[in-house]
């Protein structure tokens, strides 16, 4: 893509001319005209931030005027805060040396999708079903459609997590209290080979209410292993 002709330098304000010269000195020859405006805005924001910081430091040191030391301190603090640079080479070499000493971990066979422990994955549901208050019992045997409501995002491990692709499915209904039975179906991986799918359904027999105890279901052990 090209860029439209720039305004002739004479009509540009001095700041813009300086910016153009800086870009030229740094070897940048092709740029869209709005780049100058962006750079000038950045410059303005940066300089005002530094000067404000420097004023604060000067008043802290009980000086009436802002002097070069205050500015220097302001620049340094901003640099450490916003414009950090990567760690120095000797530090990296040392960290790398330590890390590279541990042997590569062996790979467990037949474990399905190889993902980190659930708390390091993004596979947890980011919703929680609200338990309904009313305890009216509907007619026996009828499976009512659950009313989904988006609760607060819960990252507590007790919330059911999606470890493998579709691991557990819970249907909350508003029926009589009885612990829902869980039926697991594991499709034999050797038959199909491409997907390991564990589908668990909640067989709602009759009138089971969702009591709060189902929310705090037991935490599965395999969620928390640290495979290191």
């Amino acid at each position, binding site marked *: *893509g090209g860029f439209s002709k720039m305004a002739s330098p004479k009509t540009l304000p001095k700041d813009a001319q300086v910016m153009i010269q800086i870009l030229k*000195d740094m070897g940048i020859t092709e740029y869209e005209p709005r780049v100058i405006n962006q750079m000038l805005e950045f410059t303005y924001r940066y300089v005002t931030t530094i000067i404000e910081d420097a004023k604060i430091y000067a008043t802290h040191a009980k000086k009436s005027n802002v002097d070069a030391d205050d500015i*220097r301190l302001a620049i340094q603090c901003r640099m450490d805060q916003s414009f950090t*640079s990567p760690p120095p080479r000797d530090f*990296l070499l040392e960290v*790398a040396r330590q890390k590279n000493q541990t042997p590569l*971990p062996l790979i467990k066979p037949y474990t399905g999708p190889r*993902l980190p422990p659930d708390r390091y994955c993004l*596979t947890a549901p980011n919703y929680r079903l609200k338990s309904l208050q009313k305890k009216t019992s509907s007619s026996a045997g009828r499976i009512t459609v659950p009313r989904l409501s988006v609760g607060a995002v819960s990252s507590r491990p007790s919330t059911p997590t999606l470890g493998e692709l579709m691991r557990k499915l819970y249907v909350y209904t508003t029926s009589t209290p009885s612990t829902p039975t869980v039926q697991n179906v594991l499709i034999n991986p050797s038959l199909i080979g*491409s997907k390991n799918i564990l589908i668990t359904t909640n067989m709602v027999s009759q009138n089971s209410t969702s009591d709060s105890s189902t929310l705090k279901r037991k935490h599965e052990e395999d969620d928390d292993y640290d495979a290191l």
Partner: protein
Amino acid sequence: MAAVQDGQIEPESEKEIKSETLNDATGNHAAAVGGLLPSSPVSTASVGASNSSKAAASEDQQTLLAVLQFLKRNKLVESADILRREAGLLEESDDAQGSEGGRDELGGASADEGGEAASLFSRVTSATGASGIATGPAPSKATVAQGSEDQPDVSVVLSAYSQQGDPALYQMYYSGLKKFIESVLDCHRAELSQLFYPLFVHMYLELVYNNHEQEAKEFFEKFHGDQECYYRDDLRVLSGMSKKEHMRGNETLLDFRTSKFVLRISRDSYQLLKRHLQERQNNQIWNIIQEHLYIDIFDGMPRSKSQIDSMSGSLAGEAKREANKAKVFYGLLKEPEIEVPLDDEDEEAENEEGKPKKKKPKKDSMGSKSKKQDPNAPQQNRIPLPELKDSDKLDKIMYMKEATKRIRLGPDNLPSICFYTFLNAYQGLTAVDITDDSSLIAGGFADSTVRVWSVTPRKLRAVKSATDLSLIDKESEDVLERIMDEKTASESKILYGHNGPVYGISFSPDRNYLLSCSEDGTVRLWSLQTFTCLVCYKGHNYPVWDVQFSPHGYYFTSGGHDRVARLWATDHYQPLRMFAGHLADITCTRFHPNSNYLATGSADRTVRLWDILNGNCNRIFTGHKGPIHSLAFSPNGKFLASGATDGRVLLWDIGRGLMIEELNGHTDTIYALKFSRDGEILASGSMDNTVRLWDAVKAFDDIETDDFTAATGHVHLSENSLELQLGTYTSKSTPVIHLHFTRRNLLLAAGGYNP
């Protein structure tokens, strides 16, 4: 005046005093002398040292004389007298030294005066005069001739403590060296000219780092035009740094300052240089050379300019010879033996071989026929690799079937090229990847999205939601089709999640996962069955420029702005290996076909080959003149091709660590490199909107095999880039950022339309 224990302590005490006097401008020097003598902490430690070696004693003597001269220059006559008396120096030789030294100091050491040729001459004559006298307290003056670095010169002595020479004299040192090098024989000149750039940069950085801004600017102005053209970008960065604070954020330059620039010079040229620097007493340059340069001497003919030019250009100089001597297992791993089932579909392909009645399974045709281990191949279990699942075996069978239908390419049988143009990308297309079986294309964009398209007519389907899954019949035959959601099937899917432009994309070999890396410092793993993000790997805190899955799956690498490449496994949230060593950002990372090695290309213009097992850097390849943006291993694992912003493709022999060939032709950055499936053709795609095909077989046939080349690492490149170029194909206005050979050797190219 406190008594002195013995004469040997004197020099050390004087050292203390000298630094004290330097530090305080107005101090009472006599008092300082007296005060420090009894309590010189350095002396006890250094007494033993100075007692042991005569050379050290001579150094101390010289230091003593230097201090004496300094005191005289500053008109501290009383202190000078006290010092002389206590040091027990003879008057007349001292005076002779002193006067000459005085002339010296007046001439040159003052920071206020600019360096002048006259003072240089006076220094030279006085130095020769000094060596001529060679009497009295310094019988070791003869050691000067033998190559000792010290001289009765305050600035030199000062340099030993604060590691800087006189800033005003840097220009003089440099131009002196320049004059010398221009006067040597042609055969040596090319080699010694290598000194210019590192010396220039190091001297400039020293001046900046020690706050001599004015001198630094003058130094730069005078000499930056002499440097080689390919260092222009570096010099531009340097010109913007004139204060020490400017250097703070630039890790690359700080590393450059503390690391040694490697030069390869023949012994003859080196002797010439050494002799000159020592006979001229121009020891400041010698000091700088010793501190900042590593000269790798080899015996043999000096190299020609073209040879040197082809290998130089990187930020760290060339590679030391022993850096490229480690053994690298570049062979391929043995393919597993898979039984190919004989079913009806295969009849047409196997008609000539077998009748349907034949029960003997067809052996894997890809594996090596011999049972012996290839000596150049790594052991199968050298690094742990995931076992093959049934789906992987099915994949391999498909691969073999496709391989039988593969077109053999060659100079007279060029591949057809199919170009996938991304429209309406508005320069936002930053990364592309295609699966191995060419069924999916993914694009990473500057708006932080990742989009996946299906190349085949088959649409992309996600797995159904949890509620729907509960309703399907799990016992049915086609359950795998039923779990897929037909309602939301589409040609393309968009993946949201990153916080910044996506700079790298990689499909897993089993097509279940997609990796993407972005400017926000994270690498994300996406599932291609649910089209959601599974894991976010945080480790780099700075933009990650490239990511790649290993050819066997499970491992992947990433490289970014923080100058380290990391090796991850999908089931570890922290990296398994860290590869640190580059001086600047890592812009490209590629696995070797046997998954045991990793190649990284960097903005410091070197390519490094790392061993995944222990994190060692086994090879350093220099020669590019710009940041490297593409790498490709040949399918047989022996060779590596690299492309950079200088428009050249370089071919490297991994086993011997040498450059094989240099392919010129492109005029802009090369972002895509791929070898054809059997390694006969190398395709390169660049920002100049072209795809070029090169004859790889011919390039690799021409390798010289003599021992000299292998031992010294010299390259004799044949200038036949044009012969190796088989074709140039220009697109209308679309830079090529990805190339992919299908399993049947059709070439696919991808880029974003850029009118």
